[in-house]
């Protein structure tokens, strides 16, 4: 057993060596390979060859373009108004169906793409919500909100979680105990509920902005990653190679970052990559509950929440749910597809099976 492992290790390292010295299978190494390494290039190649990740990326690129081109796709009322404020065509409670004429508060310049469909006057292309907010405008500008919230929250929670979880699992003993009890305390109040509390408490201080719910979601999100990576490290740190490294006198930090985290991080990465979408959803859910940003701030969750006024005739006013809901769904789906692809690419144990 040990012998075979050694042999394959030697063979592998020989192969890698050949690649690194420029005598690989293809005879030379590309520019990228020289700069970021063979492993990374192979990962990237697999990543760009998986249909799921391509689909995810295409959707995200489209959303990215929408976010960047928002001022052209849905011109704001005028320069003085905050563009995230959805223009409101009156105050009527009854939603207007798609393609109705825009009467009050219509943007002065028509967006360029109106010409493609022979639309000559300001129109509610996707209808209005109850309360007459334009759905199309909300979806376009809401894309920016979705990007901001998702990226910031995910990065913050996973970094905090991985650091704390690794420290707890690696050192064990009292440190582990204290950190785990702190996590227990944070986890005893369930995620959505706790975030709800914190953002409710913060809202009067920070005003009705994106900040309160975001801080709340971050403060109560990291524990899940800490626990997850801890449980993986607990079984990995007993493995022979870690003990060997320790016997050899390798520094703690190096063991952690070179030997333990790379082998224990995959489940955490799967969850984190999936949660990018999840956090967009949580944030949208907060707006849906009426806790996120200000009324009429361009945010998908809030757009959808308006439709609840007409729950008994949703089949008539379907567009108030379907359009913003579909935008949210596609956005989250794209992140989830990417997340799945990242998992398949980065986990060498899964790669071997193909």
């Amino acid at each position, binding site marked *: 057993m040990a012998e075979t492992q050694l042999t394959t290790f030697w063979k592998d390292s020989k192969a890698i060596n050949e690649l690194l010295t420029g005598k690989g299978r293809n005879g030379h190494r590309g520019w990228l390979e020289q700069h970021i390494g063979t492993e990374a290039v192979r990962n990237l190649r697999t990543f760009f060859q998986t249909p799921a990740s391509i689909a995810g990326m295409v959707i995200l690129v489209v959303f990215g373009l929408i976010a960047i081109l928002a001022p052209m796709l849905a011109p704001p009322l005028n320069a003085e108004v905050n563009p995230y404020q959805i223009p409101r065509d009156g105050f009527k409670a009854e939603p207007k169906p798609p393609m109705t004429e825009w009467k009050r508060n219509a943007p002065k310049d028509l967006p360029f793409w109106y010409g493609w469909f022979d639309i000559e006057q300001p129109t509610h292309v996707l209808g209005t919500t109850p309360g007459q907010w334009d759905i199309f405008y909300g979806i376009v500008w809401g894309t920016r909100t979705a990007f901001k919230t998702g990226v910031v929250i995910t990065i913050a929670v996973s970094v905090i979680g991985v650091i704390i979880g690794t420290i707890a699992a690696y050192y*064990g*003993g009292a440190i582990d105990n204290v950190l785990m*009890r*702190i996590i*227990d*305390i*944070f*986890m*005893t*109040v*369930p*995620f*959505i*509920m*706790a975030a*709800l*509390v914190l953002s*409710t*408490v*913060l809202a*009067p*201080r920070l005003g009705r902005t994106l900040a309160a719910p975001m801080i709340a979601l971050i403060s109560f999100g990291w524990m899940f990653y800490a*626990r*997850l990576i801890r*449980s993986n490290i*607990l*079984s990995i740190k*007993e493995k022979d190679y870690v003990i060997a490294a320790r016997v050899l006198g390798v520094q703690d930090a190096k063991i952690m970052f070179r030997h333990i985290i790379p082998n224990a991080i995959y*489940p955490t990465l799967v969850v984190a990559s*999936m949660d990018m*979408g999840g956090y967009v*959803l949580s944030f*949208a*859910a907060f707006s*849906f*509950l*009426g*806790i996120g940003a200000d009324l009429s701030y361009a945010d998908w*969750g809030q757009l*959808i*929440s308006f439709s*609840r006024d007409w*729950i008994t*005739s*949703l*089949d008539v006013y*379907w567009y108030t*749910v379907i359009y913003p*809901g579909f935008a*949210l*769904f*596609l956005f*989250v*789906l794209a992140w*989830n597809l990417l997340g799945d692809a990242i998992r398949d690419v980065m986990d060498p*144990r*899964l790669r*071997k*099976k*193909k």
Partner: protein
Amino acid sequence: MTNYIIRRIILIPLLLVGVSLLIFSMLQFLSPVARSALYIKDLPKSEEALDAVIIAYGLNDPLPLQYWHWLVGRTNPYTGETVGGVLRGDFGYSHSAKQDVIVMIKERFPATLELTMWGFFPIVIIGTWLGIQAAIHYNTLYDQAICFFCITGASLPLFVFGLLVLMIFYTKLGWFPPGRVSQWVIQEIQGGTFAVHTDMMTIDSLINGRLDVLWDTLRHMILPIITLSYLNWTTFVRVTRSSMLEELGQDYMVTARSKGVRMQDTRWKHAFPNALLPIITLAGGTFIGLLSGVVITETVFNYPGLGSAAAAAASSLDVIAVLGISLFNGVLLILANLIVDILYAVADPRIRYA
């Protein structure tokens, strides 16, 4: 093992103190006037009277003193009776619901408990089963179908899915209404022809021998359960699948097969118990999540549980009520977490608790 359990139980008071400190510290974001709802119902209008209230209830006292009074209550300077005090079960007064928070919790909790009991088993059993099937049939059409089913589940916003099923099954077909019970059941309860024992309608209807009430309650719960299941399966399938895949790829699987163990047995008796660890964590988390009130689902389906109560209070910035519900949940979940941790230790003897 016994040692571990005892140690874990000893920790519980510590956790309780921790949670109470967490909640109490969040209370400090509020103004003294807002905090007075902990002790009194009606606020006086004039400034001077407000100042008198703040002094009488010590709302500007040093924090340790305030914490103590928050725990055990305080004497009303005018009537001499003790008011407030979370240890006495007095969580303050909810201005948005116009009732004491503890009364609200007593009314709402049975509904949430009922939804948890009915929702938990379909989520865990079917979710885990799907995940195992996906892992066994790795990279086949079957696997991909399950993954696709789940990735859409993860991407669908809870509230959009909820509104969609409402649109179809309630507005269009009229099969499954939102809410908890129909009007005629409420009339029977008020008329005294239906005796309420536990406040859990399914159990009460069995005690009363009323199958029509049982059916009516289930009819109201089906949509929330479908929504919760679909969205939770995603996580179960992902975690089960990746954990199972890892175990299926281990050397001991090959050993078992070469010893002549049947394929079925290698999967269920060798791989599955080892893959169980993350699933138990997840199942525990799911149970805890359901028990603490599923905020969004309950809100969408207008189900009168703790979650929708918290959401309603939060959207009108009634912090006292939200904090009260969170504190209740926190205490409840400390006990639930204990059980999960013990199960965790039972499932994996490899984990040594130092």
